[in-house]
């Protein structure tokens, strides 16, 4: 890991006007939701959106802008560089969850006089863990593509897998030619669902250490793959 790359990545985000505005807006949304006893998923949706915007800049745009060529001309370990960028982005993304969560909780205490339950913290914390996987996937896709194609691949994968799952279910329910085959082999549907749950995890409403361990192990595997791809990647000058 490179402390300089991590600090620079974090600094670049937390000092950006758009990032600070996003935090302020999220804090207001969270405080409003908390004061009227609203569902935290109202503001957590925007946290995920913010994480996608931060995460899509993880590595691809640096390739296209020429920054990466300049950085790799120095004796920097590629994996350390990628992991430090990832860590910087994750911390920036977690700040996006943590600060509004505090406003949400404080508003619930002061305006709703609500007794705090573990779910008040579990839902935002699990969203933070979900976003860890999101950033790992954006790092993985970014390691093999240019520009903002990582985020395009992320959405393409999600849409394709959900469409495939719906399609298989629909075929299995009706009386088409492969319907009986799908009904006889339920492992096919289960396999697609398992891939969806691995790549696009969805946090439970309570703390669940099994789910957390599963997601974190997937994150580490995705990062290992990203490093393996990135170490072999050609980064010629004037790539784009």
């Amino acid at each position: 890991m490179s402390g300089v790359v991590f600090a620079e990545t974090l600094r670049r985000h937390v000092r950006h006007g758009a990032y600070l505005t996003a935090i302020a807006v999220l804090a207001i949304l969270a405080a409003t939701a908390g004061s009227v006893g609203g569902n935290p998923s109202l503001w957590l949706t925007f946290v995920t959106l913010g994480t996608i915007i931060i995460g899509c800049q993880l590595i691809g745009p640096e390739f296209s802008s020429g920054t990466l060529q300049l950085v790799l001309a120095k004796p920097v370990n590629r994996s350390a560089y990628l992991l430090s960028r990832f860590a910087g982005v994750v911390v920036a993304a977690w700040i996006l969850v943590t600060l509004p969560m505090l406003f949400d909780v404080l508003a619930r205490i002061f305006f709703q006089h609500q007794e705090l339950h573990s779910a008040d913290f579990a839902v935002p914390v699990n969203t933070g863990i979900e976003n860890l996987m999101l950033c790992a996937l954006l790092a993985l896709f970014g390691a093999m593509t240019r520009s903002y194609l990582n985020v395009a691949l992320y959405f393409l994968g999600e849409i394709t897998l959900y469409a495939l799952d719906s399609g298989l279910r629909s075929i299995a329910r009706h009386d088409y030619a492969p319907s009986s085959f799908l009904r006889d082999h339920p492992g096919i549907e289960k396999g697609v669902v398992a891939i969806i749950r691995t790549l696009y995890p969805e946090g439970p409403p309570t703390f669940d250490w099994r789910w957390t361990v599963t997601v974190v192990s997937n994150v580490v595997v995705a990062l290992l793959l990203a490093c393996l791809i990135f170490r072999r990647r050609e980064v010629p000058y004037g790539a784009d």
Partner: protein
Amino acid sequence: MAPIESQRGIPRWLPALALLLIAVRVGVALWPEKKGASHALVHWVSIADAKGVAASTRKPILYEFSAEWCGPCKLMERDVFNDAKMAARINEHYVPVRVVDRQQEEGANPPEIDQLQRRYRVQAFPTVVVADAGGEERGRVQGYGGPDAFTKFIHDHAP
């Protein structure tokens, strides 16, 4: 300047950590089988936790009353609760609680299941009841009328 090869090296701790976590994950996958937990797509919440979670998340509770021997319940499980898209919708909008009847298997139900069945006047399986955090009923559907009817029910009663 460090040699070029070191620029492309992988930190040793990363594959080691990946292997360790994969080993832990395998252990985690085996653990719930012993304890009888499920790998359900829907994040079922226990009866005891349901009201607390509903109050915190401001979502209504979705009680699913079913039984092991009930055929339509299994059909609903396959079509609805094992459908990733549908499960995601349920997790997003509701606090799902599964209430499995044990009358036939054990002769009597645990008191909390008995109480819920009486409160929501459950007469057949499956019965799905939507209730607010205070337990007030907001909607119900008795029997399984297919995925489309259930999707409409879920959509109509979502906050």
